């Protein structure tokens, strides 16, 4: 059975290997260029550091995002071109009648195909992820947005889970709908829905977020995008704690007693001398409430999401075995 699985998979394996080799060459080249430039940014003269950092960001954000999208697309392609046709092609060419009447049960046929090809899917995507994670490591250190939707999904171990899930999803959809094109379209749609819902709705609840009180000071201002104020209150927008995943987009700035900080108070602190202004504001003990997932949870999140996708893969596979045994005749 392993021989037959390999014989039928040979061409696809060759195509995947060629594609992976091309990606590898590009990523090794990109990775070494990023490393060279990163050394330059670290050793910059203070006067040109801001420009150097911007140039570094500009130079690689686009390229790394593009490769990241490609890595996220890899499981989709695997689900569509390896998973969905696995059974439908047999049904459409009626070779199921040939192969399922040899001395091998359908359950064993499916088990061999699923194990072997899921491993292949995980290996291809895993190598791609390893290469991209290495290539982008300096950039990620520097930009530090590891929880970003694109960044999180295209680094380290989660892509392995996506690959396994997408492949088995394609196989099971094909088993049920029995037609190649329909199975491919449904696989694409189903996987896209999952990949939209998980990062946007589910992921932030994987662990209970932390809510803490953050002092509103210069450091807080430097980590935010904007600050707005009127006579009813003040708002800090886009504050991000270092390496964390912000779940608060904007927060009201509050006095020590919890009342909103207003423009009237700000005017009262206008002493004319900047140092005195700042001392006056600091004396108010201003703060805001901030909800986030701490930076240290990056790896727990990677492992939880990988495990969840692998568990879903196993459930789908179990359903596939039940279906091929009791429903496909």
């Amino acid at each position, binding site marked *: 059975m392993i021989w037959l699985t390999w*014989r039928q998979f040979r061409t696809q394996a060759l195509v995947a290997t060629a594609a992976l080799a091309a990606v590898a060459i590009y990523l090794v080249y990109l990775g070494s260029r990023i490393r060279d430039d990163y050394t330059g940014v670290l050793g910059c003269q203070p006067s040109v550091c801001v420009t150097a950092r911007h140039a570094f960001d500009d130079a690689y954000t686009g390229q790394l995002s593009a490769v990241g999208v490609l890595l996220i697309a890899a499981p989709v392609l695997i689900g569509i071109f390896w998973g969905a046709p696995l059974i439908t092609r047999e049904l459409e060419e009626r070779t199921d009648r*040939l192969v399922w009447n040899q*001395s091998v049960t359908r359950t064993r046929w499916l088990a061999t195909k699923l194990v072997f090809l899921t491993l292949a899917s995980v290996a291809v995507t895993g190598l791609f992820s390893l290469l991209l994670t290495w290539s982008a490591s300096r950039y990620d250190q520097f930009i530090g947005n590891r929880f970003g939707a694109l960044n999180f999904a295209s680094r380290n171990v989660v892509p392995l889970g996506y690959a396994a899930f997408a492949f088995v999803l394609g196989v099971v959809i094909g088993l049920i709908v029995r037609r190649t094109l329909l199975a491919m379209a449904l696989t694409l749609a189903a996987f896209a829905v999952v990949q939209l819902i998980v990062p946007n709705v589910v992921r932030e609840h994987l662990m209970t977020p932390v809510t803490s009180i953050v002092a509103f000071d210069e450091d807080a201002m430097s980590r935010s995008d904007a600050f707005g104020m009127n006579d009813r209150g003040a708002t800090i927008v886009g504050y991000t704690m270092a390496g964390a995943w912000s779940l608060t987009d904007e927060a009201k700035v509050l006095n020590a007693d919890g009342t909103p900080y207003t423009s009237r108070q700000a005017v009262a602190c206008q002493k004319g001398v900047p140092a005195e202004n700042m001392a006056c504001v600091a004396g108010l003990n201003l703060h805001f409430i901030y909800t986030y997932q701490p930076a240290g949870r990056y790896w727990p999140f990677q492992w939880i999401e990988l495990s969840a996708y692998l568990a879903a893969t196993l459930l789908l596979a179990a359903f596939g075995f039940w279906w091929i045994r009791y429903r496909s*005749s």
Partner: protein
Amino acid sequence: MTTATTPVIETGGLGKRYGRTTALADCTLRVPAGRIVGLVGPNGAGKSTLLGLTCGIVAPTAGSIEVLGNRPGAGAAQLARVGFVAQDAPVYGGLSVADHLRLGARLNPRWDRPLAERRVKRLGLDPAQKAGRLSGGQRAQLALTIAAAKRAELLILDEPVASLDPLARRAFLHDLLDFVAELGVSVVLSSHLLGDLEKVCDHLIVLASARVQLAGDVADLLAVHHRVTGALPPSAERIHEDVVRSDAAVPGAQPVDLEDLGMAYMTRAAVASIGGAA
């Protein structure tokens, strides 16, 4: 356990429905071992359904079926005992003839490699040839070779000659008879033309309108059916026109041949279904 007297196929009230369509109904059969069974009926009569039920790729919705004493497709051991060639002899277009033999060898514990290689050689098939490039007759022969070298106890062939030209038909059936004798297997083969099968089969099942119309060993069937143009004794039953079933001898009766016999039952079923619809 299977013994020499275990029937190859035994069904009781077997039926298969697809939604509201009845593909096979109330089928009760007992096929003894060692026969070459002809399964005949018009297109859509339920032949493929019955064969699918026999090898286990179709699950029954009513009644029971045992093949060689077991539930069809019940496990690897049962699969090994039944060889099946589906209609149009599907093979993997992208795999070569040699690949197909390798497939058979890898997937069947009782694979008879010398038999497979001998047959491929005798049929003049090029082992390196892609199966997708074979002619219909060559494809049928390749599929039959895989089923035969599996060394099953029962071979099921669904419309094996439908896509072949008359010359290839004769060659295929002749060849089939040869190796059936050599391997000592039971065979079931279906066709919508009784003319294809009458020279090879010694057991006949006529299927029409999803029901079994007639079943039995050919010699027994020919013994109780006659051509009678005149009046009938009370115990005799007129099947269609001059074909008559009577256990007792009928004065002035002529013998009937198998093709006319099958045709009479199929025509009667067709007339009944038209009458029923009207």
